[in-house]
């Protein structure tokens, strides 16, 4: 199993008292599988994704990525997981503004020690970025930025790709194109994909779907 969540709970303190965002969530993802995670705003989708990525820790339950429990792991262990096993795509693109497209594309692969120039070039070609390699993020459109973000995520060939509304900031046509590209490349690397989305239409393009309501899998 690539990703396993068992009885995961997460509560955030708020000014109106503790807010339980995840309440005993169970979820699994096989290698090569693509899974859509849907739900209303505030249902806990992003929190679940963050726990799976080791960006945050669960209050209770277990989160295992590629057999390694990261629910309560140290900061350093979770950082290593993000560097080597997981790839993240965000709605806001979150490129590094001080680096050009080429450096952004290869950043995580080099950080993970798995930089393969040929593969990165193949990604750039596939994503239509070859002519934009010397540009900086602020000089790109939203769609172009998201393609760079996808390329950056796939460059180290992660085993698990986690995407949080990757087309949320793009128009429908651009979003569809970007998603199609991402699915094709994820399939090419053999990674598993967990994608948060509001859109049932986009969710239908993935292998399976789970729905989250008030912190529970429906």
């Amino acid at each position, binding site marked *: 199993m690539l990703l396993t969540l068992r009885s995961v709970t997460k509560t955030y303190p708020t000014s109106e008292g503790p807010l339980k965002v995840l309440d005993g969530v169970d979820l699994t993802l096989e290698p090569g599988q693509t899974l859509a995670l849907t739900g209303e705003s505030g249902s806990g989708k*992003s929190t679940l994704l963050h726990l799976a990525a080791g960006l945050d*820790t669960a209050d209770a339950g277990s989160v295992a990525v590629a057999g390694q429990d990261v629910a309560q792991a140290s900061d350093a262990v979770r950082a290593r997981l993000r560097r080597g096993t997981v790839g993240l795509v965000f709605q806001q693109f979150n490129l590094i503004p001080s680096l050009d497209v080429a450096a952004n594309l290869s950043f995580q692969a080099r950080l993970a020690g798995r930089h393969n120039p040929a593969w990165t070039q193949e990604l750039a070609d596939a994503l239509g970025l070859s002519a934009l390699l010397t540009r900086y993020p602020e000089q790109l459109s939203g769609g172009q930025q998201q393609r760079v973000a996808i390329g950056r995520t796939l460059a180290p060939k992660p085993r698990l790709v986690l995407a949080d509304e990757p087309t949320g900031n793009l128009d429908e046509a651009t979003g569809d194109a970007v998603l199609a590209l991402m699915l094709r490349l994820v399939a090419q690397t053999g990674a598993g994909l967990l994608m948060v989305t509001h859109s049932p239409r986009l969710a239908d393009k993935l292998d399976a779907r789970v729905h989250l309501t008030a912190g529970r899998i429906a």
Partner: protein
Amino acid sequence: MTGLLALLSHWRRHPVQLAMLLLGLSLATALWSGVQAINAEARASYDRAANALGQDRLDRLVRRDGAPIPIATYAELRRAGWQASPVIEGTYSGLRLIGIDPVTLPEQGRPVDVGNLGDVIGTDTVFAAEGTAVPDGLTLQPADLPTGIAVTDIAVAQRLLGGAGISHLVLDPDAARPALPDTLVVQTAQNGTDIARLTDSFHLNLTAFGLLAFAVGLFIVHSAIGLAFEQRRAVFRTLRALGLSARALTGVLLAELLALAIIGGLAGTAMGYGVAAALLPDVAATLRGLYGAEVAGTLAFRPGWWAAGMGIAVAGTLVAAGQSLWRVWTMPLLAPAQPRAWARASARSLRWQAGLGVALMMATVILGLGGTGLFAGFAMLASLLMGAALLLPVLLTAFTAFAQGRAAGVLPQWFWADTRQQLPGLSLALMALLLALAANVGVGTMVASFRLTFTGWLDQRLASELYLTAQDEAQAARIVMWLAPRTDAVLPIWQADTPLLGQRAEVYGVADHPTYRDNWPMIDALPGVWDAVAAGQGVLANEQLYRRAGLRLGDTVTLPGGALPIVGVYSDYGNPNPQVLISTDQLVARFPDVPRLRYGLRVTPDKAAKLAADLRATFDLPVDAVVDNASIKALSLRIFERTFAVTAALNVLTLGVAGLAMFASLLTLSGMRLPQLAPVWAMGLTRRQLAGLEFARTLLLAALTMLAALPLGLGLAWVLLAVVNVAAFGWRLPMHVFPGDWLHLAGLSLLAAAMAAVIPVRRLARMAPTDLLRVFAHER
């Protein structure tokens, strides 16, 4: 009002930003107005001294042997037609008591603010500064006089001083001067403008430091206001969209700034008063030691100074906020609401900055080649400092780009690229740090060079083991005879005053002796210089006279008895007056009345102490009549150290303000850094690693700024030593470098940077993942 409340709510949500703004403004105002308070107090003291001691501006008659003038002699002089007024001086109950005769005192020498002395003739009224403790039986009449000085009627003074004789006779400058008895000599008046001119350069130095500190403080204000405006761009746009005109919006922001300026100004002037009160005793000691100018050691509150402090606070705020206000005024209604990177300098503005910096540097060179005088010196300093400050971000940008290109790993590449991206936000703080460090290097080099030169010069000038001052010439003659078998040499140090090239100059007579030939601190001389002086065929000129009058070796100076060529120039630090040296024989021939009271005694050093004790015992001399050279050196060095104590204090304060500017920038930037740092964290770096890199970045930038400050500081020192000092004091000092001091300063700057970075970095290292995750949240 609604708009104002909406805008003001920003400060409630960002109290640290508000505190930084007010702190920067109040510190800038404090250092500026503190220096102004010191200057105002010193100038008021000069005025009081001029008023009280107006008689010092007049020539006076004194006895050749320094003894009091008998009443009978005074009466004879009056009968002979001398328009002279008697003055009695002495110490009474810790006061310097001056007794004057208001009837005969010339108008020009009258203490103008003392009132109508005619009304108090013969009464026990004394005029002194308000609050002066006067002994029982005397009535204090408050007057604008320096502390410790009391003026009264001559009869009262004579009685209080135990029947003292006349100290001197003040001469009416317009009256005729008949023949003078042999026992008396005319002493030329001290020129009050000399003190004013000399102290002016000191005050100019202080003002320059005050301005520098003010500019550094304004960097904090500018960055805090710039950030607050950028963060409120969305609010501005909303308010404009809701119908608030650009004029009204700018007006509301202006009102907000004025309110902040008044608060900061009030705090700043109060702090400035504290700074001035703390520094004034040192300044007073400096002015007394270096120029002989008396300044009260306590500070009076002056409304004009307070108003000026408030004015500079408001003006400074408006200058610091000008750019931001202009942006609001010209902001299109549909401007993007998302805050742009704060103070991000575009490549175009960086090019402008580089161009202006280069132009200012060229102006510095042109001023250095063609400019003369104090104004040119300070203009050079200003253009050099501003030019360098403008070029710093350009140089750092180029350096980080170069380093990024050479970096091997992905993290170093990101580190340099990210550092370059941070530069616009940090550049103001780094410019402030550069100026403070350069001022420290420059002024430190100047002071240390001065100290080294001065110490060496003292060793040369004070070659005699003992210095003797006899009470009268008869005693001097007896002592010289007594000393003959007990010393290696007894060297006359006789001095007369004479007008020279429009100034009052000192003329010294020196004996032809190896003490002078081997030790005298010559700057330049013709061959056979000492032979020429000994033969009465030349004079030595001090550096002040030589430079101010633009003289060359071989030029002549006219002394009583005929002109003599200059055969040598010597350094003469600390002396504001022109001075020439001629042979003792020439001095006696040209100034037959010269007092023959002072001598330098050459003796084996280990016998000096015993000889001094024997001299005092044999001739019943007071302790200070025989002084060893070590005591004079120690006294001179003490005066020297106090002279630069104020400069050192201002140096430390300026560096402190620069550290605060850095802290303010790092703290405000840290909140804006998250969108840049969170993705790197998400890709596998820990918060601790990121915090370490942030810390390293701060230290690196401080170190690079220190590196840039070194040549700038040395340039500053050169301008101070070779241009400003020559114009202000008339002497040029050799420049020495002190790498040990640089290392110390580098350590201090790194410490300041580390202290400035520690809170933002600690916050990042301990930041909850939730805060970092907000960067990725959809709602952001």
